[in-house]
C-alpha cells in the first residue's frame, strides 16, 4: 500500500501515514477552509489501511495538534472512531497524543477525545520552544 504524505501549511498539519512502518503521524495546527475536504483522503487511506491490516501488527499513531478548530475536531473524532472500531475488532492500535506542557487546554481537548475511546491513548507532555 502506498504511503500518504501531506506537507504542512499554515492551517493544515503535516500528515505522514506510513504503512511500511505502521506509523501514522499527524503534526500541526488544523483549521483549513474546508476540514472535510482536507481529511477526506486521510479517511480513505485509513479505511483501506485498516481493512488490509493483519491482526497482531502493532500500529503506532502519533498526534501533535497544537490547535484544531471545531470542524477539524469533528474529523479527528471520525478518524478516532475508525481506529476504535478496528481495535474492538481485535487490531493492535496505540496512540500517543503530544500536548504542550504549558497549555492545559490542549490536554483537556485530548482527554475529551480519550474519554470516548476504548483503544489505548497515552497523553504525553511535550516542550515547545
Amino acid at each position, binding site marked *: 500500500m502506498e504511503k500518504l504524505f501531506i506537507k504542512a501549511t499554515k492551517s493544515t498539519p503535516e500528515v505522514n501515514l506510513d504503512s511500511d512502518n505502521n506509523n501514522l503521524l499527524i503534526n500541526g495546527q488544523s483549521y*483549513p*477552509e474546508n476540514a*472535510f475536504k482536507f481529511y477526506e483522503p486521510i479517511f480513505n487511506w485509513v479505511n483501506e489501511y485498516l481493512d488490509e491490516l493483519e491482526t497482531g501488527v502493532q500500529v503506532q499513531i502519533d498526534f501533535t495538534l497544537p490547535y484544531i478548530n*471545531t470542524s477539524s*475536531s*469533528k474529523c479527528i473524532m471520525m478518524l478516532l472512531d475508525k481506529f476504535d472500531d478496528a481495535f474492538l475488532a481485535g487490531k493492535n492500535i496505540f496512540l500517543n497524543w503530544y500536548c504542550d506542557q504549558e497549555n492545559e*487546554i*490542549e490536554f483537556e481537548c485530548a482527554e475529551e477525545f480519550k474519554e470516548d475511546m476504548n483503544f489505548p491513548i497515552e497523553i504525553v507532555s511535550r516542550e515547545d520552544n
Partner: protein
Amino acid sequence: MSNKMFVLQKELREKGVLISFSGKFSQEIIEELGQAVKKYLETENHPKTDIYNVFSIFIEQTQNIKNYCVSKQETPAYEQIANSCIVAIGSQENNERYVCSGNLIYNDDIDKLEKIINELIGLDKQSLKKLYKQKLKQDLPPDSTSAGLGLIDVARKASSPLEYSIEKKDEFFSFFTLKAIV
C-alpha cells in the same frame, strides 16, 4: 484632507482595539490575522491558555461568518453580505480580552440564530461540554462544511456568557454582533 483617520484611530484606542478587519473574510485573511493576534499577545506575556482561547474564538467566529456568507453565495445580496463582515480583537477593564464580530444576516435567519445563542447563554460549562460532545459524535450530512460546533466552542472558551445584538436594518437585513470575552 481632513483628520478622519486620526478620529478613527482615537476611537479604536478608546475601545481598546488591538487588531481589526472590515471587509470580505477569506481564509488567507483569517490565517494572517490569527497569526498576528497570536504574536501580539505573546509579546504581551499572556498565559498560553488565554492566547489559545482568544485565537480559537477568533478562528471560530470568523470561519462561522465566512461559512454563512458562502451559504448565501447563490442569493442576489451575496456581495452585500460578504462585504459587511467585521471583526475586532481588543482589551478592556480587568485585563480581559474580547473578540467582537459583526455581519449582515437575512431577517429570515434571525429566529434560528437567536434560538441557538440564547440556548448557549443559558448553559453552564458542564452542560456546554455535554452539548459539544453530543454534536461532535453526531453523523453529518455528506456535503457538510460545518459541524455546527463553532458557537458552542466559542461559548465554552469564553470566560463569561456570550453577548449579542441583532439590529434590523430594513425589511430584508439585520446586523448581527457577537462578543466573546476571555
